[in-house]
């Protein structure tokens, strides 16, 4: 469906829209009919069985169908509101961090439930979701709420909130169980309470949306026209945002995170021919209801007995990634994101600056090695004590160093190959891709060996990066859309991870441990893996620095200087994917080191790849070694995952980069 916004499109749209409407309605009706026929029933003596089957029908099956419709409609409406008010076609409770914020608040609430017994789940979820959205908006305010900045900030806030949730879960964890699974978007119901609490909210939200119809239409124009039409712009915007957060947080509190529905519903509404604000506001909730209803019927039908196939929320998240990729060409207008070098210590010569970096790394290594905490406070380990502690400290320091350097190099390659200053393993979804690879290995082999794990992670990472590059090459996406393609790939990969996570068995525990990213388990094998792969993968890069300086200039120029584009890109992609996979095997998926190390190198004044590469390696190593040391000492003897610390350093930095004026 081409995006032709002409006046005649409306009538044409309505006609072509009939077919998807009919198909969707039929699919919903058919799957519900099948569910009614094939639903499992209680056996036993006829009288009791009949009574219980009645109970299940009236108090479980029907309210479940109703809650799917209501939640879907609420999320669809919230998505439509968010997209309209932010003028952002990819705004959604999940891309804006609202869902993760709500989830984090609920997780914290559950962990400290004795303290929070007074606060209701809805209130917690609303607070968390609103806080996340406010942070995202504040961060992207200076760039005029530019859609990509908003989405990227949302992604980073989601990442940080998600990793805080995982840490909280692990902190209370039992062997294989986690409270994570309770929030994974299962729609099962035992009464009408959920429906009764959500339905009035939906009705209220819908009424408010209708009431705000005119300002919403005006808001779709630019600020200047809106102001000239007399709309109290920011007040209305804020009111609508509050409404959307309230709707999606209520759904999250009632049934957990239902990924990407707010994205899918308005898109489907437009596919079905909705064009004006009123049409979209009416059609998006209907479309959301239909999608969630269908997904929920299917997951019940494919499950065995009374168990679902996958939690409904995960099923919709699987749709979200591809949908985002599909939407990308429709995202309009951004300002380019650039990172300028700071003047600071550039007066020093390149060798001098490199020397300083090397000294810094040595100092960090030294600090990490000798400075620690014990029962009686801080201590500096020397002599016998140091040689005692060395077997535990050295491997994790080596692992952090190697992983940091490799992530930095991978980030540098990605930034150079894509010509995008914000590209990095984490942002482009390559780290998450390796997680999907790990998940597949766990599914296929049960408990794979470390080498098999690395191999499958490399496969996942490469697949993710190739998809990203393919998307970029095909549609000639702008630099910023590339990042959104990365978010899409990451979302899809994480949905695959969530499926296994939702099983709550030992494999889920392995994934949770990987997700949280810890160097604590590093032993000789991991240390050698880090060192050897660092040597093997980084050395050839020094021979390719010419490619790295030419590729960002564009394919035309590259060809003209005799560089064969495809092979050189592919070799670099394989190297970057391998480095990402091994680093993410060692320290987990979310350190953001690959993003900040090349930037810091550039800020210090290393511009030519021949200089930027070694500087990036040194900085990446430094960042992760320090993060690892912090993770070890901050809440001694308990340990914070290193990836979380690095993300807490890297996330704000990325946001700062994003929010600087171009």
């Amino acid at each position: 469906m081409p995006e032709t916004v002409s006046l005649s499109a409306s009538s044409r749209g309505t006609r072509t829209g009939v077919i998807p409407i009919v198909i969707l309605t039929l699919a919903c009706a058919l799957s519900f009919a099948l569910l009614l026929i094939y639903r499992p029933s209680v056996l036993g003596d006829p009288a009791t069985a009949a009574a219980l089957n009645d109970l299940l029908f009236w108090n479980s099956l029907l309210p479940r169908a109703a809650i799917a419709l209501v939640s879907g409609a609420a999320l669809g409406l919230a998505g439509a509101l968010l997209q309209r008010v932010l003028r952002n076609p990819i705004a959604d409770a999940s891309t804006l961090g609202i869902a993760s914020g709500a989830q984090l608040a609920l997780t914290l609430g559950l962990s400290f439930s004795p303290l929070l017994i007074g606060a209701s789940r809805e209130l917690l979820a609303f607070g968390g979701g609103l806080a996340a959205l406010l942070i995202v908006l504040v961060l992207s305010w200076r760039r005029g709420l530019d859609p990509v900045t908003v989405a990227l900030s949302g992604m980073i806030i989601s990442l940080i909130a998600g990793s805080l949730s995982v840490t909280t879960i692990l902190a209370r964890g039992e062997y294989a169980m986690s409270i994570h699974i309770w929030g994974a978007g299962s729609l099962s119901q035992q009464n009408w309470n959920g429906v009764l609490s959500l339905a009035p909210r939906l009705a209220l939200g819908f009424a408010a949306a209708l009431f705000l119809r005119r300002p919403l239409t005006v808001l779709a124009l630019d600020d200047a026209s809106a102001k000239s039409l007399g709309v109290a712009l920011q007040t209305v915007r804020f009111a609508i945002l509050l409404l959307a957060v309230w709707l999606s947080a209520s759904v999250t509190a009632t049934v957990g995170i239902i990924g990407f529905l707010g994205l899918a519903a308005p898109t489907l509404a437009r596919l079905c021919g909705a064009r004006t604000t009123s049409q979209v506001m009416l059609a998006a909730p209907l479309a959301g209801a239909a999608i969630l209803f269908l997904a929920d019927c299917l997951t019940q039908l494919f499950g065995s007995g009374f168990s679902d196939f996958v939690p409904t929320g995960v099923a919709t998240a699987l749709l979200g990634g591809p949908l985002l990729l599909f939407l990308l060409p429709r995202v309009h207008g951004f300002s380019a994101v650039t990172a300028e070098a700071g003047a600071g210590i550039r007066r020093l010569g390149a060798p001098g600056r490199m020397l300083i970096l090397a000294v810094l790394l040595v100092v960090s290594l030294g600090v990490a090695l000798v400075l620690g905490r014990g029962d009686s406070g801080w201590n500096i380990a020397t002599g016998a004590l140091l040689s005692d502690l060395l077997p535990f400290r050295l491997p994790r320091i080596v692992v952090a160093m190697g992983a940091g350097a490799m992530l930095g190099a991978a980030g540098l390659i990605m930034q150079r190959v894509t010509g995008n200053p914000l590209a990095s393993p984490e942002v482009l979804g390559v780290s998450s891709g390796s997680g999907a690879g790990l998940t597949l290995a766990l599914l296929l082999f049960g408990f794979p060996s470390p080498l098999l794990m690395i191999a499958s992670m490399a496969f996942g990472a490469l697949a993710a990066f190739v998809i990203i590059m393919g998307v970029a090459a095909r549609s000639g996406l702008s630099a910023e859309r590339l990042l959104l393609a990365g978010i899409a790939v990451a979302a899809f990969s994480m949905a695959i991870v969530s499926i296994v996570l939702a099983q709550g068995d030992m494999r889920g525990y392995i994934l949770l441990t990987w997700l949280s990213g810890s160097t604590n388990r590093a032993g000789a094998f991991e240390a050698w893996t880090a060192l050897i792969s660092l040597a093997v993968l980084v050395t050839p890069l020094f021979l390719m620095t010419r490619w790295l300086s030419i590729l960002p200039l564009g394919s035309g120029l590259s060809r003209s200087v005799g560089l064969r584009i495809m092979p050189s890109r592919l070799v670099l992609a394989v190297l970057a994917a391998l480095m990402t996979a091994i680093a993410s095997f060692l320290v987990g998926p979310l350190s953001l080191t690959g993003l900040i190390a090349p930037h810091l190198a550039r800020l210090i004044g290393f511009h030519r790849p021949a200089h930027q590469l070694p500087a990036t390696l040194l900085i990446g190593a430094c960042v992760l070694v320090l993060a690892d040391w912090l993770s070890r000492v901050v809440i001694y003897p308990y340990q914070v995952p290193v990836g979380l610390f690095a993300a807490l350093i890297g996330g704000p930095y990325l946001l700062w980069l994003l929010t600087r004026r171009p």
Partner: protein
Amino acid sequence: MGLLLRLENHLNDPFSLTRRAMLAGAAALLATTGRVRAKQPGPRVATLDWALLETLLAIGANVVAGTELLQFRQVAVTPEVPGTVADLGLRGTPNFEVLRFAEPDLVFNSNFYAWADPLMSRIAPVESHSVYVPGESPYQLAEKATLAIGDRLQLASARSLVDELSARLDRYRKELAGGDGRPILPINLGDARHYRVFGSDSMFGEVLARLGLRNAWSGTTSYSAMAPVGIETLATMPDAWIVLIPPHPEDAFRELVEGAFWKTLPAVREGRVLTIGSVNPYGALPAASRFADFLAEGLSSARNR
């Protein structure tokens, strides 16, 4: 009406059973371990595994370090962890430096934390005893581990723990033989709409079998437990006793028991719900003993009313 009232008593005061049963359990444990507890500092031992930790504590070993003690004291409750035991931090990310400072002579480990063997063997010799292995009986493995650890540490209390518990389970089995013969459904509540169930291959399932009781859950479980199961499935087991095992989120518990669905369940209407004390679902013999005490006490007191 009388049944309903009694049920409400249970629900309002989940500890009414706990206290009595705990006293019984504590007395039984003391009988076997009291002598050893009175200071006989054997080799200093440490472990990452909770099942082994409670075993070591129960047989009176000289434990110097264990993992997640804050949580252990809340979930496993007994045996009590002396204040001198060092906390190694999370089970997923144990702090090896703390372990090193605790100076153990011997470290016990299980298959769950096998990855840590090479690291810990630098501190002290590591011995592995697994209680949870797919396809094997956790109760038998727990007995085996207890005896092996007792042999290793030369603590006769290990043998008496095994024998006493086995005898106690036999006694309970005879006492319960005259019961209603209904199956038992041991569950953890996750939230107001989902629970985790324990199959025949779990420690709870094994204890049920040894008490001559039937496990109401006949479906599949992965690694002894299955989650999340929707609360509505409780309606498919109308004959069963529902045994709620804390810890569970207090608000979820209240929301559940106040709901109409819950009140309509045959088990609830007929007063066949027991809320017992917190038990570590992946424990060893001490957890089995706690569970058996709670269950025997709860079922027989329900029968006598």
